[in-house]
Every structure is written in C-alpha cells, then in structure tokens.
C-alpha cells in the first residue's frame, strides 16, 4: 500500500506548487491510474514516490515505511520504474538491461540468467533478442524490455509514466492487453500515469483525475467516475461520450436480458406471428430448449405450415455473456434487426437490443 499524505512539491523559482497538498491511498495489488491535463503534476507525483523528486512537504509511505527513512537507491531497487522513453542502456545487451536491478542487488550470475529467460517469456520476447542491443529492436519490443527490466527483481510496486505513449495505437492496444494479463497473475501495486482517459478507463482498477496543481478532482473506480462525475471538470475531461465509454466496463452478465422474439422448433405459423407481433418485429429466433437454432423472417413463413418446415437462417454474429456492452453495441448496430443473441457457451440466454443498451447509457 502506498499512502500520500498532504504531499506538496514546490519547484524552486515557480510561484505555484506543481503538486499542492495531495492525499491519495493506493491499495495493494491495484492498478491506480493518474490522469489529467498536461502539466497537472502527474509525473511529479509519480517521481515523488521513488524520490526522483523530493517532496517539499507531506509524507509518503510505501508498505508502511516512510520513504525518507530508506536510502534512496535502496528504495528505488524495490520499486519498478518504466518511463515513456524507456531509457534502455544502449551499451548493454537486452539480457544485461533486463538484469539491471538483480545485478545491482548482487544476485549470482546463474540466478540472473534464469530470471532473465523467465522474464523474456513473461513479456513475450523472443529469446534470440536477448543478445541484441536496444538499437536493434522495434519500439514495441523495447517497451516490453522496459517492463521486463522493471519486473526483474520482482518488486511489489511498479511506477509507470506513460509507458505506452511512444508506440503506435495497434502496438499500444496489444501492450495494454498484455499488461492486464500480467497483472492478473502478478498482482503488483501499480501506479500508472497517462493523459489518455481511455487508457485510464481500460487499465485502472481506480482512476485519480488530477487538475492543475495536482488537485484531486475524483478518485474512484472507472465505472463509478463515468456514471457519476463529481464535477464539471471531470465530466468535461471524460468527454461527451462518457456514456458510451462506460459501456466497455459493463459486462452483458451485469444486465437483465430479454428473452426476445423466440419460438420453439415445432411452433405453428400462427404462434410465430403472434410472437413477432408481440415484439413488433418481422422476424423471430428458433430456440430448442436452450439451443439457438437460427432465425426466420415473415416472408419465410409464406407457404409453410409450421416453423419446422422452413429452412432457418444462421445468426451471423452472436455475443458471449462475458462480452461488454460496448461489444454488444457494435454487434447490434451492425445488424439490420438491431438485436444480437447472447450465448453462454452454446446455451441461449436472450437478446440485447439498442433499447437495452440505451437504458444503461441513460442510467
């Protein structure tokens, strides 16, 4: 756990403090994202935690210890640090770069070698890269090395300052995904700085929205911030599409599903028409027990006595119960019927419609 208590930083020669009496508690095993406009003090706050910037006032404790009670280099060896420019050592091989902190800690060569290989695998880096120099890697690979290097001595705390800021959006998305996968097994306490609100929402267990001077405007889980921004500044920072952003945080399993216009495989034409009229649609799905068979439209009923006689059409896309409402929205708007069927494995659960989703947005 990291606790900032009324922490202030005044840089010499500047009238206003860069960070003014900021208090923040970061729980163990959580990813906390500091987000806010440029110059609001995110980097300064982060750097105070590993004493790259010395606080002018207030106290910071990491795992119950005041950071000023530990020699700064020892403190830093216990805190992983990743920066946007990565800062790999150009004169050292990738293996030696990853081994930086273990080497500083005096681990034996054999232990270090094993650890480096383990880390390369962990961050999905081809072992053949280990003998190369940083200039011989792509941006995305270098960023992986930066993360591996920060994790090398297995520090409980990780500080990351715009770690994915320098890579293109496709690589960024992949690295973000990989970080979440890593975190699911490592459970580090991570403080991550970004100015990208989408990144904050995606990665943060909790998001701290900072204003100029390090003023904490809101500190909560992303879904909660999106649902109920505490003031105008936060709402503006989230953007006018915050309702849609929130959809990515809600899983389909969180909402009640309507069963939808559904008939059994043996239903008669009349029954089918009744169901369709009940939903005011010109189609219905065929469900046998909990198995989704397919669907048909009013035209398909012409000249057939019952549903059993027609050739069911296949659903082009279906949703899984674990998908988010954002994925649901994507599916729904791309079908002409404006609905998508939800499955749990191959068990039919119900339908998501634009109405279901807009109800969630309005909430």
């Amino acid at each position, binding site marked *: 756990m990291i606790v900032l208590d009324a922490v202030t930083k005044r840089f010499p020669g500047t009238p206003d403090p860069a960070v003014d009496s900021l208090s923040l508690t970061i729980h163990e095993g959580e990813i906390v994202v500091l987000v806010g406009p440029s110059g609001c003090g995110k980097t300064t706050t982060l750097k105070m935690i590993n004493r790259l910037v010395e606080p002018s006032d207030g106290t910071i404790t990491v795992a119950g210890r005041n950071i000023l009670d530990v020699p700064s280099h020892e403190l*830093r060896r216990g805190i992983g640090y990743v920066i946007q420019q990565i800062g790999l050592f150009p004169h050292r091989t990738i293996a030696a770069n990853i081994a930086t902190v273990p080497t500083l800690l005096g681990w034996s060569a054999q232990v270090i070698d094993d650890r480096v290989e383990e880390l390369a695998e962990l961050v999905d880096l081809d072992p053949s890269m280990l003998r190369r120099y940083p200039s011989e890697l792509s941006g995305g690979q270098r960023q992986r090395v930066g993360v591996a290097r920060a994790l090398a001595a297995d520090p409980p705390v990780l500080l990351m300052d715009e770690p994915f800021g320098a890579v293109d959006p496709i690589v960024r998305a992949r690295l973000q995904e990989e970080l979440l996968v890593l975190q699911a097994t490592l459970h580090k306490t991570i403080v991550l700085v970004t100015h990208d609100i989408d990144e904050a929402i995606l990665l943060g267990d909790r998001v701290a929205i900072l204003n100029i001077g390090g003023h904490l405007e809101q500190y909560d889980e992303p879904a909660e911030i999106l649902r109920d921004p505490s003031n105008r500044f936060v709402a503006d920072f989230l953007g006018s599409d915050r309702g849609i952003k929130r959809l990515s945080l809600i899983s389909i399993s969180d909402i009640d599903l309507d069963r939808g216009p559904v008939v059994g495989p043996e239903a008669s034409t009349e029954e089918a028409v009744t169901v369709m009229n009940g939903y005011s649609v010109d189609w219905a799905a065929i469900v046998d027990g909990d198995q989704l068979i397919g669907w048909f439209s009013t035209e398909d009923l012409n000249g057939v006595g019952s549903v059993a006689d027609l050739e069911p059409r296949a659903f082009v896309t279906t949703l899984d119960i674990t998908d988010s409402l954002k994925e649901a929205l994507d599916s729904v708007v791309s079908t002409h019927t404006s609905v998508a069927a939800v499955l749990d494995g191959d068990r039919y659960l119900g339908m998501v419609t634009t109405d279901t989703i807009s109800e969630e947005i309005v909430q």
Partner: protein
Amino acid sequence: MRSFAQASSTGFRWDWVGNNLDDIWDRTLEHMLLTLIAIGAGLVISLALSLVSLRWRPLYQPVTWVTGVMYTIPSLALFAFLVPITGLTITTAEIGLISYTLLILIRNIVTGIDEVPQDVIESAVGMGYTRRRRFIEIELPLALPVIVTGIRLATVTVIGLVTVTSLIGLGGLGFFILRGLQNFSSPIGTTQIIVGTALSIVLAVVVDLSLAGVERLLTPWKRRKVGV
C-alpha cells in the same frame, strides 16, 4: 634498386639510415614514451578536473579558461619559462606536453558525459544506481566515443609537439630534426630532417588508427545497427 639509387642521387642518404638503425629505433621508443606519459598523466588530471567540473558546474568555466590559456602558450615560451625551474629534464618536457592535452581531454570528457541521453540517466537513477556506479557503468561507457575522439586528437597533437622537446635535450624523433637543422646544407642533414619528420607523421597516423580500432572494440553496441 633503381629508386634506391635515384633517392641517393637526390641527396637522401640510405646509408646513413642503415648505419643509424639502432639510434632511430631508440629515438622512436623515446618519442612513444614521452607521448604515453603525457597522455596518461593528462588523462588522469583531466578526469579529475572533469569530475570536479561535472559535480560543481560553476567550476567548468574557470577550468576551461585556465587550460585554454595553457593550450595557447607557445611551447617554446613555455619551455623557456620552465627550464630555470625544473631544468633540462623530462619533467620540464612532460609539464609542457601535458598542459597541451588538458583542454582537449577535459572538453571531450565533459561533453561526452553531458551528451548521455537524459532518459538513460533517469532510468538508471530510478532503478537504484548510486552516483558513483552510474558514472562508471553507464555514463563513462556511453561517453567513450567522444572521450576517445579527444584522446586521439590530444595524442596526435602531443606526437607533433614531442619534437620540440629536442631543444631541451629529449625530443624523440625531433632529435634528428634538430640535428638535421644543424647540418642543414649537407645531404646527411636533409636525410635526418626527412627521417625525423616522416617517422613522426607515421607514428601519429599509426597511433591514431590503433586508437580508432580500440574504440571500435570497446563500443560493440555501435557496430551492428541491423534495424528491425
């Protein structure tokens, strides 16, 4: 054999070279030794002054100013000034030679360290390097190309200057140049001047290229830039 005869006829005395091989070899060694001492000591002093300048930045200006003045004093004047104090000794010679290396070496060391990328420094500090270890393991190796450039420049300068120390009885290959000047109108005099000058130049070129080779060996990360 024809060119041999031709050279002899235009005044170059190969027979003198043949008769004085031992002497030429000894003077070449002396030349190298005087250079080596000057560069070695110059490097130690420069490193110390650079460290001080890097640590207490305001000192950098005065340091470059003083070493800059030393660099511009004509070597003859410097020896004339030193001989009454330290005599016709190797000490006198080395004080002169060393004083010409300082400006070049200090500038290159400080510039080299300054040019180490800021993000590299930040990540080194952030991962828990102490100041001393960071300097030795990170900053110095990365500054090496610039520092070696300074050493090459200083070495070539010193190899040229060593000849002047012939005036105080040393001089390495400059000894032959001085002798040659004293026998100026004779064929032997010409030969001595040519031998002294040519070998001094060859020495400078060989040492410069060797140092370039050493730099390549010490900076393997600069060699392969495959790009991915």
